[in-house]
């Protein structure tokens, strides 16, 4: 997973933050199936540490995390000059997901449970629009 720049040089790097280890695993598997390079984080701390070293192509954030919440991370990313163009997708079972996505200026959101296809579709569309 850490061999980011070896085999998949053309592949896009996706960071996923979710405290549910099983979901993190399956999302990573699904994105790998679609030739992305996903890296999973259980919380905000590890995410911030990694992003300062390597900027990804898109970020998927769960809202309900231990410590800093996903929408707070999104808000920080979107208000920083360095990451404001980075596509941010919020995922949550939270009923107020749409409002939180709006407030944090996230680019998209998916209500849990969502289909893997829709996650891949959303990421694909952000990545392809960035390429253009």
């Amino acid at each position, binding site marked *: 997973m850490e061999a980011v720049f070896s085999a998949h040089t053309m592949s896009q790097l996706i960071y996923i933050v979710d405290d*549910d280890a*099983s*979901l993190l695993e*399956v*999302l990573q*598997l*699904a994105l790998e*199936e679609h030739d992305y390079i996903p890296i999973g984080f259980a919380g905000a701390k590890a995410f911030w540490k990694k992003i300062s070293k390597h900027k990804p192509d898109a970020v998927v954030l769960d809202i*309900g995390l231990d410590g800093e919440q996903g929408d707070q991370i999104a808000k920080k990313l979107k208000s920083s000059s360095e990451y404001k163009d980075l596509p941010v997708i919020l995922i949550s*079972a*939270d*009923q*107020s997901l*749409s*409002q939180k996505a709006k407030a944090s200026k996230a680019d998209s959101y998916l209500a*849990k*449970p*969502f*289909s*893997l*296809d829709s996650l891949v579709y959303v990421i694909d569309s952000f990545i392809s629009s960035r390429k253009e």
Partner: protein
Amino acid sequence: MIARMEWADRFAKLSLLHASASVFFLDEHGVIQFANEGAQDFFHLPVEKLIGTSIHAVVHKAPRKDRTHAQGACPFTQLIQSNVQVMRHFDIFWRDHVPCWIEYSINPIQDENGTKAYVVSFLDAAIALREKNSFIENEARYKLIFEVSHDSKLILNKDGIIEEANPVALAFFKKNSIIGENVFTLFPKEGKTAFHKLFQSAKRSSVKLAPLNFSHANGDELFVEMSIFSKFLPGKSLIIFRDTTARILEQRERDRFLALVGHELKTPLAVIKAFTQLLIKIIAPTEDARISRYLQHINEKTDLLTGLINGMLDAIYLGSGKLPFHDEVISFDQLVTETVFELQKTLPHEVFEVSGETKSNVKVDKHRFGQVISNLITNAIKYSPVSEPVEIAREVEGTFVRLSIRDHGIGIPKREQAKLFNPFFRGRHAREGTAKGSGLGLYLARQVMRHYRGTIQVESAYKKGSTFTVELPLTQEESV
């Protein structure tokens, strides 16, 4: 002799005072000078005949054979002569050959010239007693209704000053007495405007009922259900209210718990769904076909469970008024067309016939109202034969837009129609093989229509099909 005018003046005042009794005015010789309407009614004689007649003559109209008795019973002769004041004396009196009890009083008066006169007033004692008893009975009944109650009750004057309060009201305000206080100063500041509005509108419509929400300075919320009867008595209003705070807070707690449960259920569901989908992709079709089929079952049921949880959460949030509605002005025709178009994509074998135009705008949450439309259409499919089209008609009716969704299916028996909008109700005649809904679609549809002050109705005849109709107020606002 006192001038007639002077008598008349005094008498007018006195008869006003004794308006409910029979009153007449005698000169010192016992001759009737004036009689009020009550006296006229009592003796069954016009006032003109009474005036100038001696009181003895009027009283002695008793039948000859009873005259002795009547004479003896005549209260006035001796009393007038003895010139004493008589208060509330009872005696028998003959009227139309029938004896009756009277309760009377005689007041000797004298003017500055020393001229004597008598004011006689009396009541039919039987009526007086009846009235007195009914007064006592009414008072007991009133006390029972007013004081023994689970509700707080206040009687206010027209300025909102409390004139009466029952013990529950005193306990509610935690005070020993609130008589003389202004009702508006008693309720917490926050929410007072709503109360004031309710009070004002009750003045126009005489009775007003509404739930009110107050908040104390310390942040504690207070909920009451209030009824205001503004024309309770002339110039008085009656306020009846019930403290529903405990009930509402309990319900909120339950809703919060259910919302939390819903959230916690969806998190593992997300994992189940994702792994199932991943497995469906990984398993090549050439491998055991049963595996793919079983996985499809898991996937479908996961979706059903998700739908149930989301429906339950929507119902909770709708009930608590917390479901966010993002209203926008949109073309009603376009909204219907788009919803049907989206449905057609997922149901390519179904036939939808859309007709009519409203050329009107509505102000709704596109997503929520779209859900209502697609719920009704998918329901129509469930209950119709595969080949029959679902007819969708749009029209304007007064200040409303109307959408009718008609199927040619089995229809809904009358006894099922009333239960149709209940949560988890499912008709017996749903088409086999259609995807089961959450059972909350129609229930939520009705809640959404209520939110928009619209209506939802069903007309159905067994074996002839059903028509669901929703009506929504149209708006004159232009869409952005």
